[in-house]
């Protein structure tokens, strides 16, 4: 008996020993399961060819990306060396010490000049304006729109539209036109609908959708440095923005109450809607004829302006951070040095990744590479994001609880929903001693 126990122990210790020695030449990056993660895997294969360090991009479906990442962080696990984490995680992950402080690295490489300013502000810096950086902007992303060019350019439709609304049918310049066009194409009897918007309330779908309206109507979610929300989240602009979003919901396909990026791309591929809101990261699938039978007739435009000409979009996208519990932090640093090189960023964009490198974004080559790159470039310089405080998840759930019944079921009024939300947020900030 004793002999077999000793043998077993020896076996286990051998397993551990060989495990760590093999890991020194390997890096694992954790991300969500979507096309950009595949592009990143292709990119890092080139790193392996150059340096011999094997890098693996491990993925999990979006729905449990956050849960899985934080479970690993909280357990201080070393399974992942780097994580391409959502922008709103940065407060929670930096305050709890899950991310390695990259301020020195950032300043050494002058990354706030190399990367587009908005990406630095929202993906990397926490707290706001503190000059402390926790990640390198990796996948820039924001919300844009796709539309059916063939429906828009049909002479009969154009004539009918002009007769009804008094101006030409074209991609909308502002939210009023967006609403008019959605109404115009909304024909349930023909199984054609006006517009596809985000409504999923299980993570940040619905909130991102509403943010597009709020920011363009000139509103804000609150003051991110003083945590003041009264009169900001429930401002007049925000009430109007939320009312408009509710109105747009009336022009969506049937059953559109749990729609996020998958459904919104389906709205275009399945001939359901004239226009569809989605992250730029999902647009490659729309220009590919294998995944979109309407690829040839799909066009793109940036989030339209609000009534006062403000034009902003909700930020998606992620920065890449080093996990504090990794056993290969130095190796990971070396990888980041390679990742931020201009050539690497250019290659990243070529493979389909959305680089945040200002130089690449500004190049003619990038802007003409796809039908949506120009809209992406324009958008990336006017994006805003949700709260990044450690308790963002509570704020997100409270916002979902308050606005979802109004947007999808018309319960109460926009003002009531936002007033209640301001109260919830105040209570939460008070609980964590922020105000």
């Amino acid at each position, binding site marked *: 008996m004793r002999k077999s126990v000793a043998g077993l122990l020896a076996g286990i210790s051998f397993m551990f020993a060989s495990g760590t020695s093999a890991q020194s030449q390997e890096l694992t990056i954790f991300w969500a399961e979507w096309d950009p993660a595949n592009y990143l895997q292709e990119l890092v294969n080139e790193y392996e060819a150059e340096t011999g360090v094997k890098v693996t991009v491990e993925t999990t479906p979006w729905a449990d990306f956050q849960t899985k990442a934080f479970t690993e962080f909280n357990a201080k696990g070393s399974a992942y060396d780097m994580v391409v984490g959502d922008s709103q995680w940065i407060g929670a992950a930096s305050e709890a010490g899950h991310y390695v402080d990259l301020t020195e690295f950032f300043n050494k490489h002058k990354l706030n000049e190399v990367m587009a300013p908005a990406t630095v502000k929202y993906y990397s810096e926490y707290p706001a304006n503190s000059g402390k950086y926790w990640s390198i902007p990796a996948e820039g992303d924001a919300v844009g729109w796709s539309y059916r060019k063939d429906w828009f350019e049909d002479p009969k439709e154009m004539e009918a539209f002009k007769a009804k609304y008094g101006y030409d049918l074209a991609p909308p310049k502002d939210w009023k036109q967006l609403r008019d066009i959605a109404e115009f194409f909304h024909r349930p009897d023909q199984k054609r609908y006006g517009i596809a918007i985000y409504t999923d309330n299980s993570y940040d779908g619905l909130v991102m959708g509403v943010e597009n309206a709020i920011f363009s109507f000139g509103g804000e979610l609150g003051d991110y440095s003083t945590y003041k929300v009264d009169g900001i989240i429930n401002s007049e602009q925000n009430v109007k923005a939320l009312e408009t979003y509710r109105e747009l919901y009336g022009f969506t396909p049937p059953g559109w109450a749990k729609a996020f990026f998958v459904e919104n791309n389906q709205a275009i591929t*399945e001939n359901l809607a004239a226009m569809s809101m989605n992250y730029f990261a999902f647009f490659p699938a729309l220009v590919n004829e294998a995944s979109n039978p309407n690829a040839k007739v799909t066009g793109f435009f940036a989030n339209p302006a609000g009534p006062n000409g403000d034009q902003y979009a909700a930020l998606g996208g992620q920065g890449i951070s080093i996990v504090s519990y990794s056993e290969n932090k130095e190796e990971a640093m070396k990888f980041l040095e390679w990742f931020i090189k201009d050539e690497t960023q250019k290659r990243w964009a070529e493979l389909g990744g959305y680089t945040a490198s200002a130089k690449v974004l500004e190049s003619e080559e990038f802007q003409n590479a796809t039908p949506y790159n120009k809209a992406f470039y324009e958008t990336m310089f006017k994006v805003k994001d949700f709260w990044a405080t450690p308790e963002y998840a509570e704020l997100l759930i409270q916002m979902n609880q308050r606005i979802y019944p109004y947007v999808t079921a018309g319960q109460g009024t926009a003002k009531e929903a936002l007033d209640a939300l301001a109260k919830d947020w105040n209570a939460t900030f008070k609980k964590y001693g922020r105000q």
Partner: protein
Amino acid sequence: MATVVMTSLDSKSRAASRGMSDIKIRNLFIIPTILFLIVFNIFPLIYSLGYSFTDFRASTNAPAAFVGLQNYRELLNDPFIWANFAITAKYVIVSVTGQVVVGFGTAMLLNREIPFKGLITTLLLLPMMLSMAVVGLFWKLLYDPSFGIINYALGLGSFEWLANPDMALYAVAITDIWMWSPFVMLLSLAGLSAVPRHLYEAAAIDRAGPFYTFFRITLPLVAPILMIAIIFRTMEAFKTFDLAYILTSQPTTEVISIRLYKMAFQEWQTGRSCALAYIVLIMVLAITNIYVKYLNRVKER
């Protein structure tokens, strides 16, 4: 006592030749199970009870501070939590009632001599053998207003089963009824086949009507086993997560376990979610106790 009941080891067996006594073998079988239960069930249960009195958050390094009954007090004063409980209660009632009616009804139909009885019973049991997540994903497609087969078959046009806040909970309950009625059916069938035939013969001689026979003979005799089915299904329905989570995200379908999941693993309010878990546990225990008391009374009759 236990050793008296236990059969002793065959003296010619290999175990006996190795000098193992039957008590030693019993311990070999039982101790790992008990250890496993202690490590993975009892210990976390007690540990989380401690956390429920703190403001601990697993996502931070901040030490947990003792806050007394604050978590319980705030949870029980939260109107959203009460709404979640009300939704859960409604769901349990609709879903379990549906399962008992459908399951018991099917069992009555099957409790006679019909061809292919075994095959039919087996086929009817299939839904119960599928994974919850798979059932959820399939029914999401079946309910789809644009191309779902349910609207097509019932001629409902583009009726929104899951997007309609008033209908969504019933849609989830219907799926649950489809999946778990076979379970009630199986137990009922066992109860029905155990009813002595001579009772029915006596009733027939006395010219008892079918309703009288059902309410005075069938139901009382099947009641104990049916109660067991109801206890199991109530406990399960109370804890429902997968189906409701996959099918829809309406606030009207946010049963208590979904709220608990969000609180624990999205908001990382570990201390508070432990408190909520304990409130749910106490409720399930209380309801089960009422059932068990009732079950004992039914058995005594």
